[in-house]
């Protein structure tokens, strides 16, 4: 009995521990957070339900307004620009140029850095008294101004800049792999027909890379939503709270202000945003398989 039983159930037995761990530590704690977000928890979690008070407070908070709209400014620009830049770099690298390997490594290298390092380096580069602005002024251009980092209206774009610098090389690598996987025969056929290079790219290669675009989008979108360390290192959320993101807001509420209910409700809203992106993706993936 036992051998037969093992043969039948071994895969399930092997998977059970990680399945249970996932169930508790991912979905269990999502449920816990959802519960706490409906309570008046302050310093320590409490479990008496008290309606949607935390969500009302959240959406009445100006700081959350800033953080939430920053997510869309940051996320939108970061994803779009990183994809465009990555694609352009990949197409240039795809032209059978010399020393492609070295150049590829150079562009991919920022990905190996921690976001904290990226943030700190860019903080120095963008600091008006220390970095770019001071340097160009030192060359004699006294009126040169590049003070985005200290300008509350522009500071969020410095976060975009640093994040793109960090990630576009990675997107390039993704796209390069995609470009290489397109059937060479089709391209040769098109070339024989005398179709110009840009038409080959826009009409044949790029459309056939749709899955790569989707993967790149998913990877970048989750990077954008969970972005935390970059903001902390680059601007510390400032000037004021003009570069706050939902993740930094959640951290401040939970760990500096003793307002766990508020932190839980902001975490739930963040998860809502993730679901809004991931669920359509999962749906389309699963539908293809079922066809």
């Amino acid at each position, binding site marked *: 009995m036992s051998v037969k039983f093992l043969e039948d159930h071994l895969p399930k037995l092997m998977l059970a521990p990680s399945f249970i761990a996932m169930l508790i530590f991912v979905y269990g704690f999502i449920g816990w957070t959802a519960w706490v977000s409906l309570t008046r928890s*302050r*310093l*320590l979690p409490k479990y008496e339900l008290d309606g949607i008070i935390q969500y009302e*407070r959240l959406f*009445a*908070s*100006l*700081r959350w307004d800033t953080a939430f709209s920053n997510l869309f400014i940051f996320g939108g620009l970061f994803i779009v620009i990183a994809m465009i830049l990555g694609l352009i770099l990949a197409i240039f690298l795809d032209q059978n140029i010399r020393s492609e390997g070295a150049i590829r490594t150079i562009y991919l290298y920022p990905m190996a850095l921690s976001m904290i390092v990226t943030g700190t380096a860019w*903080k120095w580069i963008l*600091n*008006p*008294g*220390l970095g770019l602005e001071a340097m160009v002024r030192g060359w004699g251009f006294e009126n040169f101004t590049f*003070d985005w*980092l*200290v300008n*509350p209206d522009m*500071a969020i774009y410095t976060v975009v800049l640093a994040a793109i610098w960090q990630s576009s090389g990675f997107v390039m690598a993704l796209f390069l792999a995609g470009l290489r996987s397109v059937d060479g025969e089709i391209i040769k056929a098109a070339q024989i027909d005398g179709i110009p290079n840009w038409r080959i790219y826009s009409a044949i290669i790029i459309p056939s890379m749709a899955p790569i675009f989707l993967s790149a989008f998913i990877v970048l979108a989750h990077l954008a939503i969970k972005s935390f360390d970059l903001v902390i290192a680059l*601007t*510390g*959320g*400032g*000037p*004021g*709270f*003009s570069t706050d993101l939902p993740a930094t807001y959640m951290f*401040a509420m939970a*760990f*500096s*202000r*003793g*307002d766990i209910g*508020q932190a839980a409700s902001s975490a739930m809203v963040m998860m809502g945003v993730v679901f809004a992106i991931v669920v359509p993706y999962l749906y389309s993936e699963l539908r293809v398989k079922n066809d």
Partner: protein
Amino acid sequence: MKNFAITVSAIAMLAGTAHANPEAEVLHWWTSGGEAKSVAVLQQEFADNGGTWTDMPVAGGGGDAAMQALRARVLAGNAPTAVQLKGPAIQEWYEEGVLADISAVAEAEGWADVLPASIAGHMKCDGSWCAAPVNVHRVDWIWANADVLESNGIAMPNTWEEFNAAAEKLQAAGIIPLAHGGQAWQDATVFEAVALGILGPDGFRKAFVDLDEATLTSPEMVAVFDQMRTMRGFVDPNFPGRDWNLATAMVMNGEAAFQIMGDWAKGEFLAAGKAPGEDFLCASVPGDGFLYNVDSFAMFAVDGDDKQAGQALLAELIVGQNFQKVFNLNKGSIPARTDVSLDDFDSCANLSADDMAASNEGGSLLPSYAHGMALRGAQSGAITDVVTSHFNSDMSSEDAVAQLAAAVANSM
């Protein structure tokens, strides 16, 4: 019970291991240079009295990391003996039902007679003592470079008008009038100094202790934000994100003239070999009153005779004259108890102690809101959000006041 410590150690020696061996596990975030040295003093004293000290330093995030550690320990039902906590946070933990009652020690030692009443108030939970104060930092200081003031013919300002006039003069001379770091808590520190001067001690108490809506939306509060807007013109354009000690360095090397900061800034001056009264000047910010930031140890409920004996011993030593003196000489603050001789302290500390005594009698000894003494985290955070957002944008003072009232209401 005067020599409680000796009694305890004597009992321990006589009775061997059968009786209490004082044990204390202390959670704190004093891990950098002078602070670590200050804790070592307490640790040594505790050991000299026969205690076993388990150090639990958790650095990072201005105590945020330590608070996370504390939360985990309390939820696990295994709280440390004593935790570095301050202000209303003590009451918040008390409401969670996890603090101990150390009234026996406090009464035997006569804490009520030697601590200023408003500071003693923070150490009590529903009338019983639950925490021991370590020091008093004054927050409403204005620091200045003596040479810069002298060469520009400027005296320490006594009103905000004088400050503004001096700042304009300095600006014309090409000196940054106010060294400031654009971090939310530093914006709040300047804000509360200005608010104390313009609202006066009573107005400050109503606004930042009682959260009285009429005061928060009063024309005086508009004037406070107006002054903040004026001050914004006195800082250099490169201020966002700068650390406070870099701002202090700007005053030290004459790049800037003034800094508004608590007396931990004094430590920076002294460490650089500057002498108070000669190289740098200290004065309270224009206006009456004294804003304090008191570090303290809250005592958590622990089981077992050893731990409870350790807790009592620790509480007694913390408020003891010797520790209060040595610790505060290291830390740059002044003793919380008023009967410690200040002969070894510098002129700024003596000024601080005199002002504290005078304010205590005049009823203007007030808790600092910016440093978490006056309000709970959610409320003080909500105020700071508005202050920093106003300071770092072109928001009008009227809008700021309206937002202040809304943010405070929303934080409840």
